[in-house]
């Protein structure tokens, strides 16, 4: 058996992952993005240890609008709260909202895109018209309209999954309005994958449609979903910040957008209190940027010939 004597170096799943990491980390953007993201993730994981409990107007420690000093590294706001304390606690809220919204968006987008692409025909037409609707609908405007309505229906009291209802609504709304982009990319990839012979083979092997989608299509879609997921997070942070800035956030669980909103309403800009606006602003910028950098690096790693500029 001549061909059996050809031996390849054993290179299983672990080897493939190692090779992927080497290429991925070869991109400068990926390194910067990862380091920056790790920093914010650590901050968001243990805010209490780093800066103590969240300060409110009652337990504020400083004077009003004190510029940055050794005691308050990022100064204080208009009621004397330490801005560093607020920003660190805001990291947790902002990242949680963005990541949960992304999960919703990816699950919806992948399910709809894969179903449309795989079944084709009428299912494809209707699901894609639905996607088009959400695609052309400016998600920010939709979110702005939906959020107060849903809040009115649900009420503002209590907590859902440890989040205030207003934040929970924001998560759902962002998730609902950002999946169209994912669905389109997943559908196009599914269209090309389903023509591959291994899908025919799976069908002859007796696999059901569901099992073909889950066991054959989904693993081959992971690269696209991952790369675009990172970009969706960046978008989610942006929308969350904007919505909170317009007053849809929750003052009891302030995200960076809420902090910006409060600072703006207190007249921080005209009072020259740049630290009040600057600190959360820079955080939003850095986290969004690192997700975009990671997303683009992932995209380049998986598919060097295609470059998505969303």
């Amino acid at each position, binding site marked *: 058996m001549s061909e059996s004597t050809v031996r390849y170096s054993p290179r299983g799943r672990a080897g493939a992952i190692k090779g992927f990491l080497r290429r991925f980390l070869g991109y400068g953007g990926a390194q910067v993005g990862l380091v920056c993201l790790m920093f914010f993730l650590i901050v968001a994981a243990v805010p209490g240890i780093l800066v103590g409990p969240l300060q409110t107007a009652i337990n504020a420690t400083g004077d009003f609008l004190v510029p940055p000093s050794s005691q308050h590294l990022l100064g204080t706001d208009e009621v004397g709260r330490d801005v560093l304390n607020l920003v660190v606690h805001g990291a947790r809220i902002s990242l949680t909202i963005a990541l949960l919204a992304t999960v919703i968006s990816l699950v919806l987008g992948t399910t709809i895109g894969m179903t449309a692409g795989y079944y084709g025909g009428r299912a494809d037409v209707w699901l894609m018209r639905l996607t088009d609707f959400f695609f052309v609908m400016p998600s920010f405007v939709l979110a702005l309209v939906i959020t107060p309505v849903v809040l009115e229906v649900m009420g503002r009291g209590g907590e859902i999954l440890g989040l205030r209802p207003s934040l929970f609504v924001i998560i759902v709304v962002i998730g609902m309005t950002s999946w169209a982009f994912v669905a389109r990319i997943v559908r196009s990839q599914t269209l090309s994958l389903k023509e591959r012979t291994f899908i025919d083979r799976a069908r002859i092997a*007796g696999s059901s449609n569901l099992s073909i989608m889950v066991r054959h299509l989904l693993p081959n879609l992971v690269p696209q979903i991952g790369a675009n997921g990172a970009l969706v997070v960046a978008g989610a942070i942006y929308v969350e910040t904007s919505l909170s800035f317009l007053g849809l956030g929750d003052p009891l669980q302030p995200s960076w957008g809420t902090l910006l909103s409060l600072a703006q309403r207190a007249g921080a800009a005209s009072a020259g209190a740049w630290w009040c606006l600057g600190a959360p602003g820079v955080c939003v910028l850095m986290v969004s940027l690192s997700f975009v950098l990671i997303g683009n690096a992932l995209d380049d790693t998986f598919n060097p010939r295609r470059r998505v500029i969303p």
Partner: protein
Amino acid sequence: MPDTADVLCLESLHVHFPIQGRLFDRLRGRPAGAVRAVDGIDLNIGRGEIVALVGESGSGKTTVGRVITKLAQPTGGRMLFDGRDMTSVQGSSALRPYRHRVQMIFQDAYQALNPRHTVFDIVAEPLRSLRLVEDGKQLAERVGEALASAGLNPPGDFFARFPHELSGGQRQRVVIAGALAVRPELIVADEPVSMLDVSIRAQILQVLVDLRAKHNMALLFITHDLPLAWLIADRIAVLYLGKLVEIGSADEVTFNPRHPYTVALRNATPQIGGNVGRAELPALQGEVPSAARVPKGCRFHPRCPVAFDRCREEEPPPVEVGSGHTAACWLAT
């Protein structure tokens, strides 16, 4: 007449793919026509028989294979498996008993294997989805057995490998093992060796022939290569533009072809050691016409070196020219 001794029986099978017409034609209500990929085929395969389906690219031979494996739906005719009408059975759960008995081997072994599955998962997939095993131990046994009969020894060495770690011949053996794992009664092999090196071809063919001997498995061997068909098959069916032009025992069709197309196919084969019997007809000219515009009369007449007036007007019916040997030509008697 369906013969219960036959494992598979195709009766006047048609597969027409509709052509999406241009907007202008559709508005005027003009029919857009259809690609007549398979245009009335009668073929039966006996138990443990190897039948070769020979034809050029575009003759519809792959479509026949896809119909038999239920990847394509016929638009006319019937398909009987073991005497039962399988023409309109659809859906993965309804087809499960059929999948258990009919499997397929693909031309491009690399495309046919999911790059993210291990060899074990690939071979185990039909056993799992057709619920043919009770536990993991039995599954491993069946997978190992299938890999061994496809010639991958020792099977355990291959369980954790991915397709990209295998050579072309090994990949094709994995595809064969996947088809064998369920112990089917009929295997459709679509050009199983055309992508392989000549040296490996013989080994793969040997595996297929051995299977028939061991398990009395019927095989539909789809190929464009007449000598290869003669080598492996009991009977040969020659397909041209969606219709069978000649069918008979392998020796009869190869050495006593009665249809000009079969003659041309045979003459187009290069032979080592001189051109014995090559001067009868000139080589085939041109391409197979589009199946969307099938020529009137005998569909081979535009390329036929011996065509005459009748061929351009009337389509010849299949004529018995020997025992079990039929040819569809006005000149065949």
